[in-house]
């Protein structure tokens, strides 16, 4: 019965279709059912809201900025894109070297699969999936997402070309092009998150590009470590992965320190879902580093290390999204970061009047 009633509500506009016409600016906006509160999970207040004697520092603890609307496929893309970028780079570096033919081929495959799966994951998050091609409608240099979309499309094409051409000498330009695009894919997501109004991401905009780049290296190495490698290949993966893993660990520590400047935003890295994911990512990364430092030559140790590193890298992406949501819900995280500058400018402002 309840279901039936719900179905009958289609537009949320109490209009008689015989007498009214939908032509307004918001008339195209369709909803399946009216939502009592669609923006954020605002908890109801059942008591008198005003607190006598207390200075109002925010607006009833309501969020000031909107939290990200992205779903699971976006952080997963961050991982897939990073792996594709790192693989394209390794494929180009190992290009034409006979002893590393096999690993170069795997990397070409990863770059191809990553740049194919990546756009699909991003499209899955779009509100209007059939309009995914609008991402290439314009090039807007001010938008990291626009630059990223073009990089992803370009890298995808070059990665496909490289895969088809294989290890031949003619393939070198395409491989180098894919590597350049891969470098963009590895780092641009950090720029994309850093240049938002989200208090946590904006507050850590200096370390985020470094973190994403380092983690792209660690992710690529983590995936390769899980494959059967010979001595030479293992050496390449270990060197490349070690730089990435140590770099990622250093960047996570640096990001925590950068975020600590704004304690209200930094809370999101220690509490709740985002905090748990962040701490989990840290623990798994540490385990990955320890495993690769143990001086025992064993393929299983390497595989477990690679798996742990991979899980940590995926966890890190989800932690960043969840912590960003958490920070956006806290109004003081946004206000605190701006208040100091605001007060400093106060003298000049009051003299304007």
């Amino acid at each position, binding site marked *: 019965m309840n279901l039936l009633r719900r179905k009958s509500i289609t537009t949320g*506009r109490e209009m008689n279709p015989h007498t009214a016409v*939908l032509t*307004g*600016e*918001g008339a195209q*906006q*369709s*909803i399946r*059912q*009216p*939502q*009592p*509160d*669609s*923006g*954020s999970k605002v908890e109801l*207040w059942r008591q008198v809201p005003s607190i006598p004697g*207390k200075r*109002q520092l*925010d*607006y009833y603890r309501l969020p*000031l*900025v*909107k939290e990200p609307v992205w779903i699971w496929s976006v952080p997963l893309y961050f991982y897939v894109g990073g792996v594709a970028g790192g693989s394209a*780079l*390794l494929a180009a*570096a*190992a290009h034409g*070297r006979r002893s590393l033919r096999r690993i170069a081929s795997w990397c070409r495959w990863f770059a191809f699969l990553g740049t194919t799966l990546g756009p699909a994951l*991003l499209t899955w*998050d*779009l*509100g*209007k999936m059939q*309009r995914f091609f609008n*991402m290439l409608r314009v090039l*807007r240099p001010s938008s*990291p997402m*626009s630059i990223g979309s073009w990089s992803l499309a370009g890298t995808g094409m070059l990665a496909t070309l490289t895969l088809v051409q294989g290890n031949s000498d003619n393939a070198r330009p395409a491989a180098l092009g894919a590597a350049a695009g891969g470098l963009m894919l*590895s*780092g*641009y997501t950090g*720029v994309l998150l*850093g*240049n*938002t*109004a989200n208090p946590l991401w*904006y507050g850590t*905009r*200096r370390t985020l*590009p*470094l973190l994403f*780049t380092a983690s*792209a*290296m660690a992710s690529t190495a983590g995936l390769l470590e899980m494959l059967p490698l010979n001595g*030479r290949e293992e050496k390449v993966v270990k060197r*490349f992965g070690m730089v990435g893993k140590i*770099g990622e660990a250093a960047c996570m520590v640096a990001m925590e320190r950068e975020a600590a400047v704004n304690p209200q935003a930094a809370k999101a890295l220690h509490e709740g879902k985002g905090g748990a994911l962040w701490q989990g990512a840290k623990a798994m990364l540490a385990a990955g580093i320890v495993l690769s430092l143990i001086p025992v030559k064993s393929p299983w140790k390497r595989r477990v290390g690679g798996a742990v590193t991979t899980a940590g890298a995926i966890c890190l992406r989800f932690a960043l999204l969840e912590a960003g949501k958490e920070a956006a819900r806290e*109004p003081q995280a946004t206000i605190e970061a701006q208040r100091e500058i605001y007060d400093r400018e106060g003298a000049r402002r009051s003299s304007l*009047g």
Partner: protein
Amino acid sequence: MTTTATGFFTDTSVCIGCKACEVACKQWNQLPADGDFFSGRSYDNTLHLEATTWRHVAFVERSQRLSGQSTVRPFSWLFLSDVCKHCRRAGCLEACPTGAIVRTEFESVYVQPDVCNGCGYCVVCCPFGVINRREDDGRAWKCTLCYDRQKAGMEPACAKACPTDSIRFGKLEELQQHARERLVELHRLGVKEAYLYGMTFEDQPGTEGLNAFFLLLDRPEAYNLPPRPAVPTKGAAGSWGIMTVAVAGMALAAVAAVGEGDKK
């Protein structure tokens, strides 16, 4: 192409919290209803600007007097009709990868519903928390500054409906002139706490000024406005620089690792 810039001047000192602007906006733009909802936060059951709510009246209850107020108990009630600010440098516009968000001939910021693919990047790039993506519609929506009405030479619905002229619509230069006069008048009457929020570049360098600006009687955060917002893409060059350094290191590491593995 550009005609004259228009905007809103919202004078909170004369707002009576009647929500006529909210209703007029919903009705003119034929926006879907949000359902019955009691928030418990003063008389504010709208709570925030949303994809379906393009005007929102904030109710600020304070246990302190306004200057010149002579009630026995220290209490004052402030209202503010919040709206998209149509920033002169807009975070949403600069972030939009599809070009769906454009600046119109009236200098307002407009989302083209037939282009927007709902990527959600504008949602995190608005420093005021205005624009949002609807879960079931899939696109991002916000105030259009009544683009359709302006095209027909009419003022926006909210300004038309406002009974106290708290919402004023007009050419930007005239609005700014009026706002300055109003501020001087209020200060002369003893309302010393009055100030203008985001009117000029100097007031708010982060957004280079707002086309919909406000006269406020308390700190911005009391109304859920950011004290010193900045368009996030303003600092993008620095982030790209850091990324360039990082990926250069990554490329070096790859070349070194491959060189190491290849030699024997």
